[in-house]
C-alpha cells in the first residue's frame, strides 16, 4: 500500500527569489516539508515570512525556481505552463477575500469549479453544487448573489466552491481573517469536517490563534525558513 502513504505534497529544498539582477531577493531558503492525505496542516508565521509565496508555489500559481516540489506525484520544477493549469484543477482554493463571481449566484459560483470537469451532466453538476451548499448550511441561500450574503456566508460559499469537486488538496490563505470569532470558527470547522470526509489534505495559512486546534500539525515559517512546532507550544 505505498499509494496511501505517498505524500500529497512533498517539498524538497525549495528556494524562491523575487526580482532579478541586483534587486534579486531570496524569499524562501531550502524549504522542505510534506503533507499526507487527510492531514490538516497549519502554516504560521509573521507577514513577509514567505508563507503566501510557498502557498502559491504549491498551488501551481508560480513556477518552482529551485528544488523539487511534487504535487500529487507530479514534479512541478520546470513544469510546463499547461501542466500547471491542469494541476490547479485538483486543488481547492480558499482565499482571504472570498473572490466569488459577483454576477453569479451562490449555486452558480460553486458550479463554476465543476464546469472544469466535463464528464458531468448539467443536472449532476447542479445537484452536486446544491448538496455542497447544504453541507455548508447555505441551501436556502443558493439563489442569492454574493453581495446579498454576509461575510461568513460568502466564505462558506467559497469553501463549497473549493471542495465541491473533491480536490485532493485544499489550500487556504487566512480564510478567517475577515470574519468574526464565531463565523471564523464555523468556517474552519466546516472546512476540517468536509476535508476529512473526502480525504483531502488541507494546508492552511493563518495568524489566527483561535483556530489552531483543528490542525494535525503546525509549521512555522520565519524569514523564508520552515520549522515544525508543537501545537501545545503555540496554543499555550
Amino acid at each position, binding site marked *: 500500500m505505498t499509494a496511501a502513504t505517498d505524500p500529497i505534497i512533498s517539498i524538497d529544498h525549495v528556494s524562491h527569489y523575487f526580482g532579478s539582477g541586483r534587486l534579486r531577493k531570496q524569499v524562501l531558503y531550502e524549504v522542505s516539508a510534506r503533507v499526507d492525505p487527510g492531514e490538516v496542516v497549519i502554516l504560521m508565521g509573521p507577514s513577509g515570512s514567505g508563507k*503566501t509565496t510557498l*502557498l*502559491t508555489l504549491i*498551488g501551481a*500559481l*508560480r513556477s518552482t525556481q529551485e528544488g523539487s516540489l511534487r504535487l500529487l506525484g507530479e514534479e512541478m520544477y520546470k513544469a510546463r505552463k499547461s501542466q500547471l*493549469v*491542469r*494541476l*490547479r*484543477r485538483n*486543488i481547492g*482554493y480558499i*482565499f*482571504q*477575500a472570498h*473572490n*466569488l*463571481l*459577483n*454576477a*453569479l449566484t451562490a449555486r*452558480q459560483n460553486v*458550479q*463554476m*469549479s465543476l*464546469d*472544469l470537469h*466535463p464528464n458531468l*451532466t*448539467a443536472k449532476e*453538476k447542479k445537484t452536486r453544487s446544491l448538496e455542497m451548499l447544504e453541507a455548508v448550511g447555505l441551501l436556502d441561500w443558493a439563489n442569492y448573489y454574493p453581495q446579498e450574503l454576509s461575510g461568513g456566508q460568502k466564505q462558506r460559499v467559497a469553501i463549497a466552491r473549493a471542495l465541491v469537486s473533491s480536490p485532493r488538496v485544499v489550500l487556504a*490563505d487566512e480564510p478567517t481573517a475577515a470574519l468574526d470569532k464565531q463565523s471564523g470558527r464555523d468556517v474552519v470547522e466546516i472546512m476540517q469536517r468536509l476535508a476529512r470526509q473526502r480525504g483531502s489534505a488541507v494546508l492552511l495559512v493563518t495568524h489566527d490563534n483561535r483556530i489552531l486546534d483543528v490542525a494535525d500539525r503546525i509549521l512555522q515559517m520565519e524569514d523564508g525558513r520552515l520549522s515544525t512546532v508543537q501545537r501545545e507550544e503555540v496554543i499555550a
Partner: protein
Amino acid sequence: MIFAIPLAWLQLIREKVRLLVALAGIGFAVILMFIQLGFRDALFDSSVRLHQALEGDIFMMSPQSTALIALDSFSRRRLLQAEGVPGVESVTPIYISFALWKNPADRSTRSIQVMGYDPSQSIVSKDLLPDSEALKLRDYVLFDRDSRPEFGPVAELFEEKGYVTTEVAGRRVTVGGLFNLGASFGADGNLVTSDINFLRMFDRDPGLIDMGMIRLDPGANVDKAIALMRKDIQDPNGDVLVLSKDEFIAFERDYWQNSTAIGFIFNLGAGIGWIVGMVIVYQILYTDVADHLAEYATLKAMGYRNRYLLSVVFQEAVVLSILGFIPAFFLCIGLYQATENATSLPLQMTQERGTFVFCLTMAMCVISGAIAVRKVQEADPADIF
C-alpha cells in the same frame, strides 16, 4: 463545456445600467453608419432615377457629357443614323436643360430641370407619366409632383384648378399635368414638355440634342445592336457614345461616386461612426474586464485556461453587437421613412446595407474585444493570495 454557466451573458446582464449605456453607444454608432451609408446610396440612387425611368434599351450621348447635370449636346443626325441599324424600333431625341422656374405662390425663382421630347412617343412608363396629351399644346408643361417643395404647391394648385400658370426661363407656361419622378441630387425638380415647346423656351439649334433614346424590336439582340452602332456610328465619327441601359446608369452613378466628394464624405462619416462605436465598446469591455480582474484571476487559479477568459470577453463583444444592432436597425427604418418624407430622396432599408452594417458592427465589437482582452492577461492568479 456545453452545459457550462454562460458567464459572459450573466456578467453583462448583472450590470444593467452599464449594459444599457453600452447598447445606447453601439446603437448610436449603428445609426450613424446607417444614416451615412443610407444618404450616400440615396444620393446615388436619386441621381439615376431618371435613367432608370427611361424606357429605352440603348442610349446615346456626347462623349463630352459627364453627368445629367453636365450634358453636352451632339448632332441629331447620329441618332437618326441609328434608326437604320437592324433591330431598332424607334429613336427618341431628348433635350435636357436647366431653367429658372418661378414659384407660382411666392414668385421666387429656382433652377429646375426641363426635358423636351416628342410627346407622340412615350419615354417613361405610364405609371410615372400617365398623360402627355397636354404637351401638344403651345407652352404647356408637365410638373414633377415629387419635386422639392420650394417650387411651390404646384400639385395642389393643379388639382384644385386643373391648370397652373407661371414662368419658366422668362416665358409664360401652363402646367397641364403632373408626373412622378422625384428630386435628385443634381436636380431639385423636373419639368417635361414637348420638343417644340422646349425649343421655344430655350433658343437652341434643333439639330443638337442632349440625349438619344433607342428602342429595339421585341426579341432583338441588344449586344449585337450596340456593337453594330459602335462600329458604324461611334467609332468612325467619335462624337457620340453608345451605351446600354445598365452602362448608362453606371456612367451616371460613377460620376457621383468618383468625380464628386459625396462618396468620400459619406464613407468618412460612416467610418467615424464605426470608430466611435469601437471606442465605446472598447471602453465598456475594458472597464468590465478591469472590474472582474480579481474574479478572472480566481478562475485562473481554479484551473481555467486563458482561452476561456478570452472567450468570455469575445462572447460579451458579440452579444453587445447583436443586442445593440437590433433596436438601432428598427429605429433606422423609421428614420429613413422620416428622411424620405422630408427630402424626397429615395431612402430605404435594403437587405444589402443591413447585412453590411451588421458585419461592420460585429467587426467593431470583436476588434474592441481583441484590444480589451489584453487586459485579461494581466489577471495573475499568484496576486490574489
